[in-house]
């Protein structure tokens, strides 16, 4: 008979497919043994044992096949308690459920305390009752074993994400008035810890954080999970202050890593008014967590606040409008000129193509804001392709107008790299406009390189083989090792803006720039600096040996026709 209740395991159905389970009946009384066996034999395969020792022998030898042990307590050769203790004390055997057979009421509680799942009275209940309890015990044990196998994170022993949310939902159901906080803990730059100190040390860090989180969850009446690699969720009663969590986790880290610089970030969403559903609360806690800089050398706790909420609403609005914006062509491209400063007079060298979104209600939206949203919802590919098409069109237009082919650089996102027809698409738009691959430079961020090195290297090699120039964007923001740089195929290094902001005569920042100039020389590629805003920065960079400059000092991003005038005036 099929079981229609989807919430319980359908062992009867398995039974129909000849999936017979095996039960071990242990009793020193042949009459009892045979009566019980006779009741159960129709549904199960039965193994018998008449002493405790014999029972343990069978259990150890057939542990993978036994679904249940029915165990008499009073037997010669080791009583039932000894068998029960041996089963429950063994990592291998403890999953096998045991039902105790007893005529003593006093023994019932003791058996349950020692790990029996249920007890059956002597004289036996009616066979139907007995069979139902046996079936139920097996179902429960299968359920429990599945939960143990899939509900627990193998490394840290915390819950897995799915089970965590299930527990949290149950908690909400039974504590509708309780004020509960959603907490997210993230280890800062965890991939670096793995890279620098090895995966086994990384695992120790994860386990230490998990231990701390587990103790906090227990202490505050809540549940915790490892949501993914280095991110943990905690669902606990509302706390006024999270210093104790910070301290607990920091102490755990000190225990294993006194000499290492390991930090974590905590985001909290206190849902005092039960205004958001569970997933949303953790999204917000995560948002709070992400508001703490990854590079801070402090262990920080951020609480979700109104600003974050407004940002969330704004982002949700933009996310909802992306589709329409692409359809209605609400985007246009602008050009940020790049100047070659190697000779005396700066010369127009190229331009980086940037995208602008003119939202019909919200006006111009900054790319810093909407690009991550496009990356998140997967439509960055369409946007990138729009930009590339526009770029090619304008390069062609300038050539037609001024007789000069001015190459431009466009951004290639991480997802584009995994697109099998990337090269074909680029070649097609260039061909459509009568251009060559050298007329469009491709900017790929350094972080993309460090994420999936093998794939990126293969793709970049094929792009370069086809004649494209590839610039490594935001160099210095990621963590490429110098060793790795030598094996990366690139045609230019683009210095991350962060380096330029603080440069001054003889300070650390300019020394760093000088160092990177040497790296570029070593790789025999030009060094491009972006975000250059004033003459002081320009002169320092020129002196340091920078090759190409882009930034407001020379020009803000301009329209196609304005850039055309720059080409015209450059006299190229």
């Amino acid at each position, binding site marked *: 008979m099929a079981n229609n209740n989807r919430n319980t395991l359908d062992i009867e159905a398995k039974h129909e497919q000849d999936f017979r389970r095996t039960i071990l009946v242990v009793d020193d009384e042949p009459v009892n043994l045979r009566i019980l066996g006779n009741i159960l034999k129709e549904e199960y395969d039965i193994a018998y044992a008449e002493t405790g020792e014999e029972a343990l022998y069978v259990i150890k030898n057939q542990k993978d096949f036994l679904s249940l042990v029915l165990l008499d307590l009073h037997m010669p050769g080791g009583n039932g308690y000894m068998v029960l203790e041996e089963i429950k004390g063994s990592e291998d055997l403890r999953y096998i459920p045991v039902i105790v057979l007893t005529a003593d009421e006093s023994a019932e509680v003791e058996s349950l305390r020692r790990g029996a799942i249920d007890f059956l009275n002597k*004289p036996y209940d009616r066979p139907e009752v007995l069979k139902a309890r046996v079936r139920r015990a097996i179902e429960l044990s299968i359920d429990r074993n599945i939960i143990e196998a899939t509900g627990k994170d193998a490394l840290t022993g915390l819950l897995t994400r799915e089970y965590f949310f299930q527990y949290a939902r149950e908690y909400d159901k039974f504590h509708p008035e309780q004020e509960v906080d959603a907490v997210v803990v993230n280890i800062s730059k965890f991939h670096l810890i793995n890279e620098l100190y090895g995966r086994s040390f990384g695992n120790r860090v994860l386990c230490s954080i998990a231990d701390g989180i587990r103790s906090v969850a227990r202490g505050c009446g809540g549940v915790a999970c490892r949501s993914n690699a280095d991110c943990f969720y905690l669902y606990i009663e509302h706390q006024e202050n999270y210093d104790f969590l910070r301290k607990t986790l920091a102490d755990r880290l000190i225990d294993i890593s006194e000499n290492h610089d390991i930090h974590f970030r905590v985001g909290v969403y206190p849902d005092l008014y039960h205004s958001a559903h569970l997933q949303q609360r953790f999204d917000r806690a995560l948002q709070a967590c992400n508001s703490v800089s990854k590079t801070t050398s402090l262990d920080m706790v951020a609480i979700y606040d109104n600003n974050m909420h407004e940002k969330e609403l704004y982002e949700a609005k933009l996310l909802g409008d992306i589709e329409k914006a692409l359809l209605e062509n609400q985007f246009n491209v602008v050009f940020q000129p790049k100047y070659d400063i190697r000779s005396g007079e700066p010369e127009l060298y190229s331009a980086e193509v940037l995208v602008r979104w003119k939202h019909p209600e919200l006006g111009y939206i900054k790319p810093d804001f909407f690009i991550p949203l496009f990356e998140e919802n997967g439509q960055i590919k369409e946007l990138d392709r729009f930009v590339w098409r526009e770029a090619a069109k304008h390069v062609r237009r300038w050539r037609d107008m001024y007789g000069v082919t001015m190459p431009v650089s466009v951004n290639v996102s991480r997802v584009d790299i995994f697109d099998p027809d990337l090269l074909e698409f680029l070649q097609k738009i260039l061909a459509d406009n009568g251009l060559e691959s050298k007329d469009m430079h491709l900017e790929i961020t350094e972080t993309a390189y460090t994420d999936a090195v093998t794939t990126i290297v293969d793709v970049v090699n094929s792009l370069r083989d086809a004649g494209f120039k590839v610039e490594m964007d935001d160099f210095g923001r990621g963590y490429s090792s110098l060793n790795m740089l030598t094996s990366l195929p690139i045609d230019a290094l683009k210095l991350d803006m962060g380096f330029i902001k603080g440069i001054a005569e003889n300070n650390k920042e300019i020394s760093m720039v000088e160092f990177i100039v040497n790296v570029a020389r070593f790789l025999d590629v030009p060094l491009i600096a972006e975000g250059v805003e004033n003459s002081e920065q320009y002169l320092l960079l020129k002196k340091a040996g920078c090759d190409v400059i882009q930034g407001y000092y020379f020009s803000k991003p301009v329209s196609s026709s304005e850039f055309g005038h720059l080409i015209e005036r450059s006299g190229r």
Partner: protein
Amino acid sequence: MTIDSLREFGANVDEGLERCMGMEDFYLEMIELGLSDQRFEALGELLDAGRFDEAFEMVHALKGVIGNLALGPLYNTISDMTEFLRVKADVDYKALYQRVMEQRKRIMEG
């Protein structure tokens, strides 16, 4: 020994048969097996010798078997003896034991 003789004795035959999945032959076989147990004799010796702790263990084990066979009157006598021995009550165990043996004989001889 037949189903009818068991009924006559006062056994709860319906209960016993249900426990044996309605199989009369099997039920009768189990009763024969249960009643031919040498511990019935051994119990008398232990009681005579005043080894009440051992007697308790033995009668307790027999109680589990006879209970499952639903042999009402015999089960009641054995249960009484078990409880008396459990608390080491000062009762006439010899008389009780005799009753056990008589009831056993009555069943076996049908």
